[in-house]
Structure formats: C-alpha cells, structure tokens
C-alpha cells in the first residue's frame, strides 16, 4: 500500500494554519499529536447526540453513552492485546496512570525494598516514585546511560536483585527518541520477581504494542499523543495486580457499598475510575485508535523511519550540529544543539519560519544533566510530516545559525 501523506494531511485541518505568515510545519508531535477531523467530530457528535453521565442511568441516553464508553475500552483492549477488558483503566493521562501505580504500592513497600528507574525518563516517571520512596523508605536505583544515551544493560544486571520490587522505564525516550530494550529488561526483572511498568507515552503512536506478548505488568499511554484528545489516557495492569493494589482516588463509581463505618470498593476497572470520567475524551480516544489502525501501524512505522533517516542526514549536513542519542534503535525524534548557540534561540527563530519544535529539557532534566547541557532542540516527527518540510527545516536552521553566531 502506498502511504499517501498528501491525502492524510487533509484529515488534519490545523496543517493549513499560517504561523507568522508561513505555512505551519509541526515538528512537536512528541509533545502532542495533531487531531484528525474524525476524532474532532466524534466529540461534537457526543455532545450533540448522546451526552449523559454513564454507568448508573436507566435512561436511553445514559445507556448510549455507557455503551460507547465501554466500547472504547474494548477497542483499547484489542489494539494493545490485553487479556481482559477490565485490565484497561481509563485515566486522565500517562501521569495519572503512573501515579495510580506508585500510590497503589505504598502499602506493599518497605525499607528493604528497592525500585529501579532508568536514567532516560520523563519527570512523570521519576517524581511519583520519589514521592513513593520518601513515604516508604524504599530505595530508588537508577540505570545509568552510556555516552550515547543508551541504557547500560550490564549495569542494570548489577542493580537488579531479589530486593527489587518494581522496575519502571519508558519504551521510547521523549527527549532522545531512543527505544529501550524493554523485552530484555522485562525478562530479567521477572527472573527476580520484580514487576515492570512500561511508560508507553512515546511508543504507542509509533508501533503496535502487544501487551500479552510483552508480558509487561503495567503499561500506560496518553490519548493526546495518539491523535486523540487531551485529558485522557489509560493504564493497563495485569488483573491480579490491579485487584491487589489500593485505589488511588475515592469517589462515586469506584465503590460497591458505602456506609460511614465501612466502604467496600468496586471491582476493576471501576475501582480506579472514581468520579465522572472524561466520557467524550474516552470515546474520541477509541476513534483515534481506529483512525490510526486504518492507516496501519506498519505503514506508519515504515514511513516515519524513512522520514527520520532523511531528517538525520539533512541535519548532519549542518556544521556544528550535534545530535544526542544518535543510535540505531530509535524512533521519530532528533534532539540536537548547535555548538555555541542556546536551544531557545534556535526554537524562537524556527518559529518565525513557521516551524514548531520544542526546546529545553523536555521534562527530562536528568538526561540533560547526563550530557551536561541546559537543553536541546527537539524535532519530533510523525506520519503527517513530509520530506519537503524537512528541507525547509534544514534551511531554517541554517538561517537561524547564521543569525545567531
């Protein structure tokens, strides 16, 4: 199948936008993806036709909304190949998901227990665990990076032990685009009976993930990075684990019985879905996954790989440009600096050319510290981008460089 990017771009009205008199070139896909018309329409359709609170209503609107909401859960289950539908918990996003897990284990962790984090994480996958360690006195160990920014697996093997209760890392680094060897880490961790949480915020948009095959214990992603809306994501957890851990929030929907003396919690997934959820967002999330599946994740992957290769070559032509994490196993992100120039300056000038990139620490300060830099310019690609856009990017960087040096 030919991947017809020109046609696909028609699905994204925002790509027609002018920025400072220039055509918008959106290279900030890792921060949030753009949203196709079908997803936007599904939100309007919800409010125009069947907006209603779910799960408890006897009336038809409520039935309709509940059915659509639960159908979305089924879509997530099938797409990510979870064994049970109730293993899919809807959350407000990856950050919320991770906090559910870090909070859930509070009562199960003691001062002799250790947890391991990779050095390549987003703050959302660091801070919750620090908060947990502070409360439980368990110890946080860090898998160091090698000079290219890849995880040092040998060091991981030294760190992991019978004391290790949890290992958490992202599948793909948002700051560098490096794909971590999660299969190997899951396998090694399991051999020590340690549980693994994979933060898939940056991977789920780029390749299809098979949760059962991975045999991962917890997994999470955000809809807004998957062509879906803001304010929604999901947490996957193995059934027996979700049943074991404490609920994060108390409220409506998550209980089965409430008296002032004693409250019993509802079964999963409801135990973790306290309060009125982001109903329109969840439904739109399902539509977004359908959209991406229509394009085909294999096609997306192949096209994005070509884009990445082309962009890497093009940027390397620029004198003094240093790419961080320029390794074989990566996806869709180029993080760079130009020697002697601050990333903020480059970002500001690229914006004048209509090119949207992200600059700074990318919520991953430890990685910046590793390279001893204040930040980078991050170009994050997606299937909506074109080769021509990369040419314009190259030109714009060259112009910025000459202006700034």
């Amino acid at each position, binding site marked *: 199948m030919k991947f017809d990017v020109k046609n696909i771009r028609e699905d994204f009205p925002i790509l027609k936008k002018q920025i400072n008199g220039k055509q918008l070139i959106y290279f900030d896909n890792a921060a949030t993806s753009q949203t196709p018309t079908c997803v936007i329409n599904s939100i309007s359709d919800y409010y125009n036709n069947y907006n209603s609170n*779910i*799960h*408890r*209503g*006897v009336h*038809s609107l*409520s*039935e309709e909304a*509940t*059915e659509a909401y*639960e159908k979305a859960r089924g879509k997530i289950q099938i797409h990510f190949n979870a064994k049970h539908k109730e293993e899919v918990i809807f959350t407000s996003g990856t950050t919320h998901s991770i906090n559910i897990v870090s909070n859930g284990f509070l009562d199960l962790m003691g001062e002799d227990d250790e947890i391991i984090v990779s050095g390549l994480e987003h703050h959302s996958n660091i801070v919750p665990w620090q908060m947990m360690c502070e409360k439980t006195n368990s110890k946080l160990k860090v898998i160091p990076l090698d000079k290219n920014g890849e995880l040092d697996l040998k060091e991981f093997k030294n760190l992991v032990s019978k004391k290790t209760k949890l290992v958490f890392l992202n599948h793909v680094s948002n700051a560098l685009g490096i794909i971590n060897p999660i299969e190997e880490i899951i396998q090694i961790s399991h051999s020590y009976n340690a549980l693994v949480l994979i933060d898939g915020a940056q991977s789920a948009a780029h390749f299809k993930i098979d949760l059962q095959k991975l045999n991962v214990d917890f997994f999470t992603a955000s809809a807004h990075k998957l062509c879906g809306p803001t304010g929604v994501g999901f947490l996957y957890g193995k059934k027996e684990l979700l049943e074991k851990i404490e609920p994060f929030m108390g409220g409506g929907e998550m209980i*089965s019985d409430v008296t002032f003396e004693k409250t019993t919690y*509802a*079964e999963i997934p*409801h135990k973790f879905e306290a309060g009125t959820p982001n109903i329109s967002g969840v439904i739109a999330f399902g539509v977004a996954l359908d959209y991406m599946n229509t394009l085909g994740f294999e096609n997306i992957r192949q096209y994005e790989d070509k884009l990445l290769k082309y962009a890497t070559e093009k940027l390397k032509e620029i004198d003094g440009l240093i790419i961080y994490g320029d390794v074989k196993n990566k996806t869709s992100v180029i993080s760079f600096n130009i020697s002697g120039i601050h990333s903020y300056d480059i970002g500001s000038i690229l914006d004048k050319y209509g090119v949207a990139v992200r600059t700074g620490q990318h919520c991953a300060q430890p990685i910046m510290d590793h390279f001893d830099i204040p930040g980078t310019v991050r170009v994050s690609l997606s299937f909506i981008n074109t080769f021509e856009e990369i040419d314009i990017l190259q030109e714009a960087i060259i112009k910025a460089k000459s202006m700034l040096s």
Partner: protein
Amino acid sequence: MTIENLQENLIEDFSFFDDWTQKYEYMIELSKTLDKMDESLKNDENLIKGCQSKVWLNADFKDGKINFIADSEAIITKGIIAILLMVFNNKTPDEIIKSDVSFIEKIGLKEHLSPNRANGLYSMIKQIKFYAIAYNKK
C-alpha cells in the same frame, strides 16, 4: 426443549406485540410466575453486585442440571429474570455454556442487558454462565 427452541419460542411470543406497553405488561405478568425465592436465600452471597434494583440468584446442581432461583425488588427486572430462567433453568452446564444470549436483543429488551451497571441483568447472565462453567468442571 433445547435452549435454542425455548429462545425461538420467546422471540415468537414477543413478536406479536405491537408496542412496548404490551411487551412490558407481558413481562410484568411473567414476573408473577417466578418461583418464590426463600428469604434466607436472599443473602449477600447470592446478591448480584452493581445493580440498582437488587438481584439475587441462587444455583443448585442436581442430576447433571442446574436449578436456578432468582428474585429482584423491581418488577420489570423480575420479568426479565423470569424470561432468563424460562430459558436457562434445568439445563446442563454444557448446554448453558454453549448457548447464545442474543435472543434478548431479538426480543427487544437489549436496554435492560447492557453492561451499564444500573441494571444487574448483564451481571446475572454472566453469573449464570459462571455457574455453568463451575459445575461443568465437577
């Protein structure tokens, strides 16, 4: 009669109704035909969770067949319970496991059987199947 035959009969019965009022009146009639459930069986163990109108379901396994008895506070729910038991009561676990429940949709009572937890019937069917699986292993 097989489960399938029973379902077909029900679908035919219901197809004669012109509108929902007749259907509902019939269900209310059916609710009155349900075997009385002993109060002692209306315990927490037999309570189906997550229902607005409480539903209790008890199962006994005798001579290779499952004997269900059930009740609800709400009369419409009770009517549907009556329909379900007409189909599933006194059947073998194997028959129940293999059976399809789409007849409910064909009868036009789908709204009472959605995964919407307002209503316990979805859970009740799950529970019926669950008993069948459990007894099948014995």
